[in-house]
């Protein structure tokens, strides 16, 4: 049977069909793929197009979650020494990060319109950064919730962490 997928790595498919994956429970996508950290604060149209077609192709009855993956680089000014973790941001960096999170939540709503899911915000970071990054993501959720912009979700977004060891390549991409 010929593959239903026909593409190269460089040309990510526009018609990514997951209709045959009946056991699929979760789709994971990097936050920066959805809204790049390039200052534009607009959703990447190619990614949103991909996610729209992908989400609408899913037929699995057990599909429930979309996990948005945040890496160390997504937390501006984050650094560490042997004994402590610190964050040093200018007010401009801070404002940019708030806007970035806002843009992401706008994109999440667009994705949700294609298919309902439980929204997970996943800090995929080096283990020692776990508490700090989870706190940042929880704050971002709290801001949206306070503004009443998460009312469309039946369940509040869940912030989770997938800590890595220092030598763990994690998901490779960085």
């Amino acid at each position, binding site marked *: 049977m010929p*593959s239903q*997928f026909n593409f190269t790595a460089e040309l*990510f498919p526009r018609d990514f069909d997951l209709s045959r994956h009946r*056991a699929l429970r979760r789709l*994971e996508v990097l936050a920066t*793929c959805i809204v790049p950290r*390039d200052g534009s604060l607009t959703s990447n149209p190619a990614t949103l197009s991909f996610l729209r077609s992908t989400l609408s192709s899913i037929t699995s009855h057990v599909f429930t979650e979309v996990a948005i993956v945040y890496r160390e680089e997504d937390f501006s000014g984050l650094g560490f020494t042997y004994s402590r973790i610190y964050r040093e941001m200018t007010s401009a960096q801070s404002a940019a990060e708030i806007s970035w999170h806002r843009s992401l939540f706008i994109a999440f709503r667009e994705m949700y319109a294609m298919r309902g899911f439980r929204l997970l915000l996943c800090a995929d970071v080096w283990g020692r950064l776990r508490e700090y990054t989870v706190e940042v993501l929880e704050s971002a959720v709290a801001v949206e919730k306070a503004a009443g912009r998460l009312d469309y979700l039946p369940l509040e977004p869940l912030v989770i962490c997938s800590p890595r060891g220092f030598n763990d390549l994690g998901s*490779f991409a960085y």
Partner: protein
Amino acid sequence: MPKGSYRQILFFVGMFQYLEDLRLLSCVPDHFESDPTLVPLLTPLFGGRLRVMRFTRASLLKDMVDLFEGIRFHYMDLFNVNGMGLLMDACAETLETLRVYPTDPRGEQLSLKG
């Protein structure tokens, strides 16, 4: 980390019957000559996590699926993989979680992991 031809790598992987997870990094260098008579002795379980990065040699993936009579990973993390469709098809019945990187703006940068 083992290096070798397609068949050497698959033969090595096929020594571990209870192997659940697999990571494939980059592609196999051209200077390794592949020996088609080299056939894995065992079939790993391959029911765990598959992570593949910057992988351009789809033929190794095809050999893996063929020689091990399918793969059954429940988690796949695929970044810049030629042969992604083959993997997706092979795990159609078992895949529970898929991580993808559409339009990754940062490509292959390394981070705190050094």
